[in-house]
């Protein structure tokens, strides 16, 4: 598809977002802000043990507490068949999903849901939890992938067998899946290398850290229809998952998207929604549930900790001759880590002949992981980009130049096999090299050790299904309705795309994020897909509206639609020079011209454009305390076409900040019993504004040929390079390679002491 190199009038500008006033006045309604008359409040009892058999649950005392209206346990939910199932575009294991929401026979992590209570106030519900008596048989917890994979390891799920291997095994295991990509001759490649570097890496489980805890309000009606209000990234996912877990018809559940206070992938599944719905059915009242921060950290879906071994070899001239990586990712209590995506993204920025990538999905007694912004990619990039940095040093090559020599471009085969189309990786390297940051000398900071490091990253982005309608109002303004919850400003981008096609200003288009009864199927907001795919649907729907407008004008002028053109918000007749109307004029006459105008479109688009990022970090380290300050940070990215540049910059700022936290402070600190000891925002230490400098962004636009506007997803790749960039900077500051995440002060001090 040819990208129109047109001069855009709206795309590329920075209008004020349409939901902005509501958000700065406190009027915007997030899930926890919703209240219904007669509403009950529900709370969840959670396992104090990381691994235990549930021998009995006695809820009688809780049920007798005044104000308590219902108590449920896992045995109240339907028993679901084992095995993975296709659910729309998703492949999920409904039985495991249901067990995660409410355990049946086993508690598999500290925080695992055991029972739920609905009561007239949240305080009474909490008191009732204390009255539930549970008898546990405590089992040894498995807390590291290496321990989980060792011979004789305690087994979490007795029915689990490893999938992906050529021969099916009947061996009990904690390894759910093995993924491998391989090509060429690895042994010959390493033999041909002049320098080979190999390291082992260990990264901690980390959380998406959205400020808004999970919430759900559910109302079940006597006619079998129900409504769920929820802050979610995927209304249609919530609908399908609830339907499946509770064995209710999909079409009977309406999911209404409340505003959402951050997701980053962590709000793409369900935890509270099925419980609230079930309790509402049981009590015949609306039920509201909100998680506490501790529950969010312990019982939602952080991303995997991992153990990685990476070995790369290169010739004196800088050509990489062989690359190998072995990665084991924590899935948490049930299978499903992002190790597959980690395997597909690592090494992707480079053209490689000889490679082998092995990934293992391993269950451990920790919360079931969920997606976190470019899931799986950051762990792998931390390893690969560190090894590449050391190789560049051994070969006396500038690290950006080393990447350029091996850089992937159009036609390069990805590690997973398919060839790239037009991509912008080399452009990011060039821009990084020419940046003011890279050309400047490292500042001196009194009493501190300073260093500069670079790293690159890749994310493939997603397409998937989206629906949209565009309708014309009587005054010539327009409405755009989509089903994509807005987590980063996407409703404004959708309005801008419609405005561009219709020849309107952005503020003349009203974007609406609709519930599941009001718009066609739309897959989750995630995968950096909304501006690309929902934007594609909006583009098509707006084009459909334009076609109808031409037909209406043709009717009024008694000419053929082919003789009417639409340009910049004006319809004119090509055969009859005098006739022309503005959209506003035409909109006022639609009733007599054939009727209202609504364009609709549904897409499952191809032509997804992947994204590359190259980043530069300057750090200053206090050698006594190990505290690392980020002095300066530049993030270069190929963004395809920046529809609203402020929000593209915003995605980069946000992803980089999360990456910095992941690099320096964030971790799940477990004791030997598998209890998370830092389950609050004080000790789960995310960056504050005092921890960060201004983050410089360089937006490169290499248009994606697969999209009419050239759009590439932008939201995820920024989180991929920061831990490696910072590790490489720390190496130059300290003279030591740190291979564990986070590179927190105690680890930095220890590394410095060991060096002496």
């Amino acid at each position, binding site marked *: 598809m040819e990208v129109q190199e047109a001069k855009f009038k709206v795309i590329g500008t920075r209008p004020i977002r349409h939901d902005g006033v509501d958000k700065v006045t406190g009027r915007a309604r997030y899930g926890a802000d919703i209240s219904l008359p007669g509403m009950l409040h529900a709370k969840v009892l959670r396992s104090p043990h990381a691994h235990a058999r549930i021998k009995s649950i006695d809820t009688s005392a809780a049920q007798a507490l005044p104000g308590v209206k219902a108590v449920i346990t896992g045995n109240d939910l339907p028993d679901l068949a084992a095995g993975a199932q296709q659910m729309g575009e998703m492949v999920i294991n409904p039985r495991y999903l249901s067990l995660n929401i409410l355990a049946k026979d086993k508690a598999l992590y500290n925080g695992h849901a055991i029972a739920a209570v609905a009561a007239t106030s949240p305080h009474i519900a909490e008191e009732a939890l204390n009255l539930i008596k549970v008898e546990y048989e405590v089992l040894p917890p498995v807390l590291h992938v290496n321990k989980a994979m060792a011979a004789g390891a305690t087994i979490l799920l007795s029915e689990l067998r490893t999938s992906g291997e050529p021969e099916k095994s009947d061996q009990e295991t904690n390894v759910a899946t093995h993924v491998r*990509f391989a090509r060429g001759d690895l042994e010959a490649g390493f033999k041909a290398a002049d320098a080979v570097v190999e390291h082992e890496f260990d990264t901690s489980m980390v959380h998406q850290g959205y400020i808004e805890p999970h919430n759900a309000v559910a109302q079940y009606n006597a006619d079998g229809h129900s409504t769920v209000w929820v802050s979610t990234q995927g209304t249609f996912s919530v609908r399908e998952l609830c339907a499946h877990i509770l064995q209710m018809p999909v079409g009977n559940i309406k999911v209404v998207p409340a505003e959402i206070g951050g997701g980053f992938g962590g709000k*793409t599944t369900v935890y509270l929604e099925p419980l609230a719905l079930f309790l509402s059915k049981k009590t015949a009242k609306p039920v509201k549930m909100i998680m506490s921060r501790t529950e969010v950290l312990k019982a939602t879906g952080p991303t995997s900790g991992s153990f990685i071994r990476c070995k790369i070899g290169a010739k004196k001239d800088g050509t990489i001759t062989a690359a190998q990586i072995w990665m084991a990712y924590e899935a948490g209590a049930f299978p499903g880590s992002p190790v597959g995506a980690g395997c597909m993204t690592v090494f992707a920025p480079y053209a490689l002949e000889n490679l082998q990538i092995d990934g293992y999905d391993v269950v451990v007694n920790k919360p079931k992981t969920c997606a976190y912004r470019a899931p799986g990619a950051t762990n792998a990039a931390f390893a690969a980009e560190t090894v590449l940095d050391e190789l560049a040093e051994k070969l006396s090559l500038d690290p950006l130049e080393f990447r350029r020599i091996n850089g992937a471009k159009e036609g390069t085969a990805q590690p997973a096999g398919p060839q790239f189309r037009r991509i912008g990786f080399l452009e990011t390297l060039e821009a990084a090299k020419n940046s003011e940051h890279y050309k400047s000398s490292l500042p001196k900071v009194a009493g501190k050790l300073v260093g500069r490091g670079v790293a690159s990253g890749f994310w493939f982005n*997603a397409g998937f299904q989206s629906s949209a309608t565009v309708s014309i109002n009587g005054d010539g303004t327009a409405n755009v309705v989509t089903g994509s919850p807005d987590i980063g400003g996407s409703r404004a981008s959708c309005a801008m795309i419609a405005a561009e096609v219709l020849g309107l200003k952005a503020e003349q288009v009203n974007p609406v994020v609709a519930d599941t009864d009001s718009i066609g199927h739309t897959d*989750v907001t995630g995968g950096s897909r909304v501006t690309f795919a929902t934007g594609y649907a909006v583009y098509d729907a707006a084009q459909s509206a334009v076609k109808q407008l031409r037909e209406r004008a043709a009717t009024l002028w008694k000419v053929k639609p082919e003789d009417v053109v639409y340009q910049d918000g004006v319809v004119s007749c090509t055969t009859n020079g005098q006739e022309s109307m503005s959209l506003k004029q035409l909109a006022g006459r639609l009733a007599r011209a054939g009727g209202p105008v609504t364009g609709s479109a549904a897409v499952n688009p*191809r032509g997804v454009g992947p994204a590359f990022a190259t980043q530069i970090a300057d750090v200053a380290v206090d050698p006594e305390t190990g505290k690392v300050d980020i002095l300066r940070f530049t993030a270069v990215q190929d963004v395809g076409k920046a529809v609203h540049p402020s929000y593209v910059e915003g995605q980069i700022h946000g992803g980089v900040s999360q990456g910095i936290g992941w690099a320096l402070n964030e971790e799940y600190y477990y004791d030997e019993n598998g209890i998370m000891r830092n389950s609050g925002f004080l000790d789960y230490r995310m960056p504050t504004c005092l921890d960060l400098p201004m983050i410089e962004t360089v937006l490169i636009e290499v248009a994606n040929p697969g999209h009419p506007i050239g759009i590439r997803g932008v939201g995820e790749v920024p989180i991929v390079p920061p831990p490696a960039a910072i590790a490489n900077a720390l190496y130059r500051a300290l003279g030591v390679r740190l291979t564990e995440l986070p590179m927190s002060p105690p680890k930095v001090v220890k590394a410095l002491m060991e060096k002496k």
Partner: protein
Amino acid sequence: MATIIIPALLRKLTGGKDRTEAQGRTLGEIVNDLERQFPGFRERVVEDGDLSGSIAVSIDGEIITGGLSEPVPPNSELHFVPAIGGGI
């Protein structure tokens, strides 16, 4: 005829071959030909009568969306990769 790159973990089925040629105008016909060449291949990639949800297929670099009825152009290169969403 299309060139099929065999996924690494299935090369035991193909006696170590990492690529092969296959006949077929649709993905379904290609898979049937692969089954003829390497018995056991189909059950690795097909579930409930269509392409398994955990597998995606790339034809000439583009992930296709038509499942087994997807047309396969002659002389194209076909890869089986894990189906992955992002932020999902």
